[in-house]
């Protein structure tokens, strides 16, 4: 750190990936549009019936992907952070899967008392 001009100085320099403003504007626009789509899709929830929930969840998942990739910079991040993030969702999926399996396979028992 003594000199600013020696070759070691390169180690002290960050080369940030600067996301261009146009990308952020596009992503924000897409997120706004998908929020409107969520509400529009809800107007047809009687026609959609049981699909209304999954449709709303799917739109939310697409929005979440936009936020993660662009706002949270996972798109330009290293693989370690991607794996860390994926681990969180993996264990959430495990929790969900076994809870659903448990609930779905329960047998209603009537007490003989």
């Amino acid at each position, binding site marked *: 750190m003594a000199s600013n001009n020696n070759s070691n100085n390169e180690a002290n320099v*960050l080369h940030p990936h600067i996301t261009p403003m146009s990308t952020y504007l596009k992503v924000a626009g897409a997120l706004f549009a998908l929020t409107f789509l969520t509400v529009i899709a809800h107007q047809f929830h009687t026609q959609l019936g049981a699909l209304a929930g999954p449709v709303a969840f799917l739109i939310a998942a697409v929005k979440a992907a936009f936020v993660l990739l662009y706002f949270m910079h996972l798109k330009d991040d290293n693989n370690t952070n991607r794996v860390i993030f994926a681990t969180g969702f993996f264990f959430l999926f495990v929790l969900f899967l076994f809870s659903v399996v448990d609930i779905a396979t329960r047998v209603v028992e009537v007490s003989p008392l």
Partner: protein
Amino acid sequence: MSTDNITHVRSAHVSHHFKDATQEYDSGKQGIWLFMVTEILMFGAILVGYAIFHHIYPDMFAEGAKSLDWRLGFVNTLVLIFSSFTMAISISFVQKNQIRNAAIALATTILCGAVFMCIKYFEYTHKFHLGLYPGHYLDAAKVGAHHANLGMYFGFYYTMTGLHGLHVLIGMGLITWLLIRTIRGDFHSQYWLPVEGVGIFWHIVDLIWIFLFPLLYLVG
């Protein structure tokens, strides 16, 4: 640390236990991502609970969702998405040494958080006024509920939005801290890790709301 920043204003400060600036930056960011996993699992567990009880009592959840004003949730979604946008661009501004713009973007983010909490406050007080409390505090006969266990829906509603609101408040506090440090000149094109870290936290708060809005207000 501070003396270093004064002597080399536009260079990254590398602590001696790091190999180089990139490793230091990556280590800090990795810590934030590990913290994000705990956030995902905390909210995820409540969402799994919601999914299960929604499956068991779909009509009761539909009745609960109808008692919420989706327009308020909709406006709050737009407000949070806009705040995420201003948070994201503040990082770009810092990276380009446009400190004034970064400060404006951060201040806008705090303002959006405040708008979100104001709307939330009016929603909560309105619910309390109607007697829509969580769990057994909700008197089904008094509020004219069709389902005796409507209190469960509001248990989920208050837990999810309350925990989320707490995160918004903490996020606003952290962004205020960032704003002060930005104005003070702590951040520049070689040092913005705290802005990135708090940004990731703020985006996950937005991300959670993206799921809460359709689940609580629309589908029910």
